[in-house]
């Protein structure tokens, strides 16, 4: 029986990645992912693995590209400004069909921003993770346990579909400590075979090429369309979400990651006050868990989205709901975290039939009814 230990989110993710067979880590220092890289620097040399501090985020992601091309489970971690630098390499990984884990322990932006928890990279992760026609699978853990569990899922799905996978965490999840049960280490022979990898052909096969360049338009199109079929399969089979008290809920809060912990507290408080509230917590952000949301549309009267940004995931909720029910929005951003009471107040307003986009100004709730649903 696996034992329960107290760990930081960043460290739990690192140890879980090692147990999932990752022996190669390439990174560059940045707050607030520091503990993750430090853990790898300490552990990797002891287990015959590679920790390499690259000269830049750009170099680190391209080292991930190389190691993945060579067939090993490999990862990098960074935080928002560093992820921007990695976008070039992520795009090349997508184009060359290379798996690999990219962890974003988000901080506030734009620019150098701040170092407090943020969810302002949702669009970057789900919409614009690099140039070109492509996606990465995005996991959004909300506990230290899930930080660990998502590492195993990330490597599994990445290898299965030959796509890069991102874990979109934030400074809060990375730095907090919680009890966690770590997964059992994967045996070496349990790792999937990769016949496409560069190993040296040893005179036993034709040469293998890892490449994203197709100068003939029709060839590029067919490579993109083949990948798009895999994306369709991922969208169909790999949506993950948690539904909490949604069956009889009148008003449903949609929130992910650290924001969902606050939303859950607000939902529990609302129930104590007789408000039939529920929570949908996306665990995958791409593919977006449309089915979980769709399942509540017949019974729910209203939705409330809360996140640590001025409104990014709310667009996905509105795409699914498509005007069939009101979707309101409440948030803090820039590293300021909403309190459960603030979310409860927004929940109460939504339950009373108010429709709003609320961003608190100078500590007060300011209502902007006119912006609802365009």
């Amino acid at each position, binding site marked *: 029986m696996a034992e329960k230990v107290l760990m930081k989110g960043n460290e739990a993710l690192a140890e879980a990645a090692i147990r999932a067979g990752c022996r190669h880590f390439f990174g560059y220092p940045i707050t607030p992912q520091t503990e993750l890289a430090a853990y790898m620097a300490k552990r990797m040399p002891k287990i015959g693995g590679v920790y390499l501090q*690259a*000269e830049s985020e*750009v*170099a680190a992601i391209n080292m991930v590209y190389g190691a993945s091309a060579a067939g090993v489970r490999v990862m990098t971690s960074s935080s928002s400004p560093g992820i921007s630098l990695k976008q070039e390499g992520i795009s*090349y990984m997508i184009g060359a069909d290379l798996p690999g884990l990219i962890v974003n322990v988000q901080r506030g932006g734009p620019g150098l921003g701040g170092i407090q928890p943020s969810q302002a990279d949702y669009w970057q992760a789900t919409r614009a993770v690099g140039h070109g026609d492509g996606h990465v699978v995005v996991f959004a853990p909300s506990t230290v346990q899930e930080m660990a569990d998502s590492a195993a899922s990330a490597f599994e799905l990445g290898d299965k579909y030959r796509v890069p996978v991102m874990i979109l965490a934030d400074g809060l999840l990375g730095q907090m400590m919680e009890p966690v049960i770590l997964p059992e280490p994967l045996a070496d022979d349990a790792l999937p075979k990769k016949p496409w990898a*560069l190993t040296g052909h040893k*005179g036993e096969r034709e*040469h293998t090429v890892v490449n994203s360049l197709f100068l003939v338009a029709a060839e590029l199109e067919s490579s993109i369309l083949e990948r798009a079929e895999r994306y369709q399969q991922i969208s169909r089979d790999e949506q993950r979400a948690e539904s909490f008290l949604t069956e009889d809920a009148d008003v449903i809060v949609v929130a992910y990651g650290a924001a969902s912990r606050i939303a859950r507290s607000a939902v529990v408080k609302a129930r104590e006050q007789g408000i039939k509230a529920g929570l949908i917590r996306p665990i995958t952000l791409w593919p977006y868990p449309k089915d979980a949301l769709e399942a509540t549309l017949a019974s729910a009267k209203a939705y409330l989205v809360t996140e640590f940004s001025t409104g990014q995931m709310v667009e996905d909720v509105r795409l699914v709901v498509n005007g069939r029910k009101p979707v309101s929005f409440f948030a803090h951003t820039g590293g300021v975290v909403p309190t459960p009471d603030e979310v409860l107040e927004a929940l109460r307003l939504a339950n009373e039939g108010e429709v709003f986009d609320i961003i608190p100004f100078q500590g007060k709730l300011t209502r902007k009814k006119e912006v609802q649903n365009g």
Partner: protein
Amino acid sequence: MAELLFERTKVLTDAITNYCPGCTHGIVQRLVAETIDELGIEGTTIGVTPVGCAVAAFNFYTCDMAQAAHGRAPAVATGIKRARPENIVFTYQGDGDLASIGIAETIHAATRGENITVIFINNAIYGMTGGQMAPTSLPGQVTQTSPYGRDVATAGYPIRVCELLSSLDGVALAERVTVDKPANVRKAKKAIKKAFEYQIEGLGYTIVEIVSTCPTNWGMTPAASFDWLRESMLPYYPLGIYKDAKAGE
């Protein structure tokens, strides 16, 4: 019965290359292929191609190949080598790729003593994109983006890569060669082979810089371009060994 005097090197495929007449890519590519063949390492070698005229070289070599983002070949090669230290890993890069956008990756792979071999084509211009000023373009050199000649007051000076890298402890071999005549082709072959041998011995980062031609973008005939190489480039980029871990042995 006909006697076979010359044939395509085994390590090259029969793909038609995209190189222009008078360009030295073809010669250098062949020397690398001959080296891989002679050392018997085709089955363990993994090559990394750049962005530039040699981008499609993944189609030309029979060993396993990866294509890298512009300038990132040393980082990609690092990832491959760290994952498979038993394999032989080489990059093939041009001057824009290596000395401009990828100079950070180059310097750091070199200073780490990354056990890879770098084949560096210095032709003083961006070839693939149509003849822009390169970090190695000579003072006064006319290119598409230095139409009045490279003015060092505003565009700065060319980078001498071998000299720059030779100060780094991680470098096992830094040698500059050219392939303008048979004697120099033989010297270039020797340098390339030495670089791969040093990698096999695990001595660290090895780079062979080949002073090369680009008749198309220099606006010259192939013959004139070799004259310009000798008259203008070689004085600025002197041939020779700049670092050799085994010097004196």
